[in-house]
């Protein structure tokens, strides 16, 4: 089973040179630490920045420079600042190539639920609905099962939906899976030490196994 850092590390392998990328809060934010140094990519912050840099040193902290998680950040050379309408224009217009975000549930046709749990205080969807409705490529970082052992990869989402038919790939603590255009989770890779049988048991939605399933590597 992968820990959060390892999920981030595996997702980083999906990043391609020249991409503009939006990283959600949580595990997705960690992905930035594992993107190979030889790739030129640009990280977008939907509150109005292209070119997120590392967190600042104490002396560099600027309250007027934060990311979408409200954390203080820095800018890399070549960055650009803009307003919220322009930010979502570039998201909605398909200019951001890759969105990586967390999920509570994903369905076998690529629906995602990650913003609301009935009965709990609703904090809001933020930019998630815009991101999942717009990006070409959406990769989800998530735990395969809930804390009480229920699969979060389902035939249909039970929680309120964030977006439909949008997820392309999932990296969970157990596996890498792609969503089949015809529906179903195509098992591509296993986490080290995790068997196909365990993944099968823990996937409530349709699991598609097409040939041998290699153990994932991180390099």
């Amino acid at each position, binding site marked *: 089973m992968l820990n959060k850092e390892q999920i981030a590390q595996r997702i980083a392998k999906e990043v391609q040179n020249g991409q503009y990328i939006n990283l959600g809060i949580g595990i997705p934010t960690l992905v930035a630490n594992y993107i190979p140094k030889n790739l030129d990519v640009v990280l977008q*912050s939907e509150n109005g920045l292209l070119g997120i840099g590392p*967190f600042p040193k104490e002396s560099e*902290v*600027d309250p*007027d420079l934060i990311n979408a998680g409200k954390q203080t950040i820095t800018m890399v050379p070549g960055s650009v600042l803009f*307003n*919220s*309408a322009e930010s979502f224009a570039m998201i909605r217009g398909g200019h951001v190539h890759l969105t990586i975000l967390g999920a509570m549930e994903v369905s076998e046709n690529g629906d995602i639920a990650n913003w609301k749990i009935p009965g709990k205080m609703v904090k809001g969807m933020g930019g998630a*609905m815009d991101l999942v409705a717009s990006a070409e490529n959406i990769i989800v970082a998530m735990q395969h099962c809930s804390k009480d052992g229920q699969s979060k990869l389902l035939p249909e989402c039970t929680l309120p*939906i964030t977006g439909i038919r949008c997820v392309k790939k999932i990296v969970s603590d157990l596996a890498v899976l792609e969503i089949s255009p015809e529906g179903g989770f195509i098992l591509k890779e296993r986490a080290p030490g995790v068997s196909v049988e365990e993944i099968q048991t823990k996937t409530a939605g349709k699991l598609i196994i097409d040939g041998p399933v290699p153990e994932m590597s991180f390099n």
Partner: protein
Amino acid sequence: MINKTVSGAKEAVADIPNNAFLMMGGFGLSGIPENCISALLEKDIKGLTIVSNNAGVDDFGIGLLLKKRMVKKMISSYVGENAEFERQLLSGELEVELIPQGTLAERVRAGGAGIPAFFTPAGVGTEVAEGKEIREFDGKLYLMERWLKADFAIVKAWKGDTAGNLIFKGTARNFNPIMAAAGKITIAEVEELVPAGALDPNEIHTPGIYVQRIFQGENYEKRIEQRTISK
């Protein structure tokens, strides 16, 4: 050049009445109109509807207006980080309308730009789509969304001139420029107010045509929500 200067926050918000429909710039606590919020707190008004991406925290920003029970309704994309907000919401004292952030931004932009409605893919297939027109364009489904306009838009800029031209700093820009354009009366507080002609016309983010009142604010706290430092 038309002079939009007023004496300060108190004068700027003096005619905001009960039940006014307001927009307030800012993302989290970054780029919020601190001086105008303080001046509103001194006024005996209530029933406000506020369009703002977030709702502040318990003891800062819009959270202060919530605590004083001045707010009837929030229109936002994300309202976490605020216990008093949660209490009022659960008790029914406060209404909240949650809107996807990009849809919120575009609805505000549309309000300023005279576009009464537009189509966006955000929210298709979700509860956000309930009651809305859904239409297919080029094989993809979209929702129709309406413009948002405010009686008063209250924004915070870095520099401004007496003609109302504004320049923002860093990510404190966020919703401020689009809200400035969507207010019937737009109030801008700035860290530095300069004479018309002192700003480069090519570097202005918000044209003064959108701003009716401007003043130089004071004592900006600029509180940080998540001070995150590199190791």
